[in-house]
């Protein structure tokens, strides 16, 4: 059964294998939406970073994909939710090169650079929610059209 276009797609993140699954799912969604192949790769890279962030800090969580619309703009929304320890200082966590663990400190700020929009909410002891979006650019449809 094909799922309706507006339904959400969820990928549970519990082990490093799930990072690959989340990325592939995100890639499929981004392609279905009509993002360019370069943008699809940027989205996949951002998913990789935030999914890894879930594993590193909260051990488990989920990545949820959905199509969003704002006016005439269409986009892909990627939300990463966990019930982990939360982030005490979001400003610090968003600093490039800052890492509490063995990472490169690239994850969150890197994902922000790759996407068009990026929001983060976190409460200590409750968890973290990262919501990011990539919008379909007009140039893409023109490029595809002229081909």
């Amino acid at each position, binding site marked *: 059964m094909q799922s309706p276009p507006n339904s959400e797609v969820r990928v549970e993140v519990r082990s490093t294998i799930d990072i690959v699954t989340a990325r592939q799912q995100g890639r499929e969604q981004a392609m279905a939406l009509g993002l360019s192949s*370069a943008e699809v790769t940027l989205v996949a890279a951002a998913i990789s970073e935030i999914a890894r962030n879930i594993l590193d800090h909260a051990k488990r969580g989920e990545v949820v994909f959905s199509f969003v619309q704002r006016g005439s703009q269409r986009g892909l929304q990627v939300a990463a939710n966990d019930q982990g320890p939360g982030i005490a200082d979001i400003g610090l966590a968003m600093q490039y090169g800052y890492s509490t663990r063995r*990472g490169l400190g*690239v994850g969150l700020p890197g994902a922000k650079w790759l996407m068009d929009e990026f929001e983060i909410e976190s409460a200590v002891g409750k968890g973290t929610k990262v919501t990011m979006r990539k919008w379909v650019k007009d140039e893409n449809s023109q490029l595809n059209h002229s081909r």
Partner: protein
Amino acid sequence: MQVPILKQGSYLIASIQAVLSDADMLQLRDDLADKVGQFRARGVIIDVTVLDVIDSFATRTLRGMVHMLNLRGAETVIVGIQPEVAFAMVQLGLTLEGVGTALDLEEGLAFLNQKTKVHAKPAK
């Protein structure tokens, strides 16, 4: 999924066939470190053409892998980073400093030939 490692003269070629999990990547690192000794390889080519994303973990692992193989005495070059993948890496601020890279297998072989020339027998 295991990465096949082929022997080509005094070089080893690791040709990644599918997207790798973190565990696969660490396995490749250990396999190559072993095989360099086993085959007394002078050079290693890691072909990443099929990788759709090289994220921070992959970058760190590749960097570590190459430095480790260099320490084992094998020049190592990474080939086949796709344009979109390179673009995403740049956006993420990821670098492969100190790591040799080349366009494809052919250029990778040329790179190793150049690098290992010092050790090779003189041509005349």
